[in-house]
């Protein structure tokens, strides 16, 4: 089975070491600062530029590190920042909002000179670090990732839930709530497609005994445990993980982990195993497998 690789570079082997195309030119997003709850300030620089001018930048936005991406600024000529001011918080959730205390918004910046894309960079909203601690963070995050990749972790697909997008035409009512938890169009999220493209990484599950509860509706299987994840992708409650080894799927409940000056180094999340009848089992998690896993 081929190893799942992210379609956007830099997700599986952070930190970014080299730009696409073998060029030494690198694009680095230096700041993604939220100005709650209205706008986000994005700033970037070009390392090792081959010319002083003539660069055109495009800014893209998504809820996941794998997109799909929405272009919010096109061909900014020699401009190295962008103020994303489009957080209207519409009540039908058709656009992004910053009202939640934990909202992952991911930005991708691409740079071109002439017609070819020279480099791109992806960054979510996160606190910045000074230069010295950037190195420390990079070392710690890499160690955590390597230990998961080569040691205790197994392959996992992270499905990030959509919190904004096209309202579901099938089940979203005029008053704003989804009325079908297993809608085939939105997976019960109220937003078309339900989840962003999965991000593939490595994670470790802790061993956990199956707890069979008995309540008025009968015997219910509940299986709660912890999972260790690298700092990318940042997960949120109601995201779900697919452990590709056994195709078991888990919903994220609580999130903890270690940080350095407010920047995540690794994540420890409480997860609960989803019932086999859950709608999350309808989503394609492993496109490399034949027959495919749904």
């Amino acid at each position, binding site marked *: 089975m081929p190893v799942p690789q992210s379609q956007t570079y830099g997700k599986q082997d952070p930190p970014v070491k080299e730009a696409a195309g073998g060029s030494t030119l690198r694009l680095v997003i230096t700041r993604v600062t939220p100005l709650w709850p209205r706008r986000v300030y994005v700033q970037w620089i070009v390392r090792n530029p081959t010319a002083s001018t003539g660069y055109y930048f495009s800014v893209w936005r998504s809820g996941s590190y794998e997109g799909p991406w929405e272009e919010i600024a096109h061909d900014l000529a020699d401009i190295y920042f962008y103020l994303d001011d489009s957080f209207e918080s519409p009540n039908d959730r058709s656009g992004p909002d910053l009202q939640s205390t934990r909202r992952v918004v991911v930005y991708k910046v691409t740079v071109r000179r002439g017609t070819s894309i020279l480099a791109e960079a992806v960054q979510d909203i996160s606190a910045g670090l000074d230069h010295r601690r950037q190195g420390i963070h990079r070392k710690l995050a890499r160690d955590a990732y390597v230990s998961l990749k080569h040691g205790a972790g197994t392959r996992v697909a992270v499905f990030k839930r959509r919190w904004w997008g096209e309202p579901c035409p099938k089940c979203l009512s005029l008053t704003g709530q989804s009325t079908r938890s297993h809608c085939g169009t939105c997976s019960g999220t109220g937003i078309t497609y339900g989840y962003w493209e999965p991000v593939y990484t490595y994670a470790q599950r802790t061993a956990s005994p199956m707890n069979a509860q008995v309540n008025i509706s009968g015997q219910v299987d509940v299986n709660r445990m912890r999972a260790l994840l690298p700092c990318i992708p940042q997960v949120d409650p109601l995201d779900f993980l697919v452990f590709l080894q056994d195709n078991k799927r888990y919903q994220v409940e609580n999130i903890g982990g270690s940080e350095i000056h407010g920047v995540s180094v690794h994540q420890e999340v409480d997860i609960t195993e989803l019932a086999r*009848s859950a709608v999350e089992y309808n989503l394609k998690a492993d496109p490399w497998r034949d027959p495919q896993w749904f």
Partner: protein
Amino acid sequence: MPLPRGEGEASDVYVGSPLAIIGLWVLALRERFNANLGEPLPWVWRANLRPEDSENGEPLPESPRNLVIESAYNVEKAHRNYRPAIYVGRGSAVAAKIAVDNRAGNFIPTGFKAYYGHVTMPIIFDCESENSAESTTIAETAWGFVLATRDIFRSSLGLHDIVEPTLAETTLGSLDKNTWTTQVIFNVVYEQRWGTRPIAPVLREIVAQLEAGTSEGTMLQRLAARDISHP
């Protein structure tokens, strides 16, 4: 002597008992949430819960969701994590006195006394879903169904009364996922009949037969073969 049972009816569940009355609404709800093309619902009861898929194994996005409708006392089913679901249970049943000492009549030769009364029993539908709005929508459908059919059910099932149902608030629980439950509650009033037979006449009869010279074996055989359901 056990009363006759219909096909598939459990021998341990007595006709007119609370479990039997719960069974009436389990069957009725399954009929309400059927795959009626004239009135398509997004939730359909089927005996088989396996979701439909296409020829290449992909889930069918627009197929109705299978709905579990079960008695709340049926706890051994292996798919209790399945949602949406309706579990039919009951609350506290209360017998009410509608005649002096509940008395219906006496049969003087044997001392048999007949009684009757009305039992008021709340029937509770737990409408579970992973979505608050879906839970209440399913419950509204069930609530409207009970409201609209109560007269028909009352007359055709021999119940004394079916009180107008209550649609309760939606509450949150946490299982493998957050689970929302909306209850539909309504009282069913049905007649309960029972009788008592004093032991003294039976003993007197045994003594009389022994004194008349009936052998012990014959007498015991007669006692065992006697239909005690009638005075």
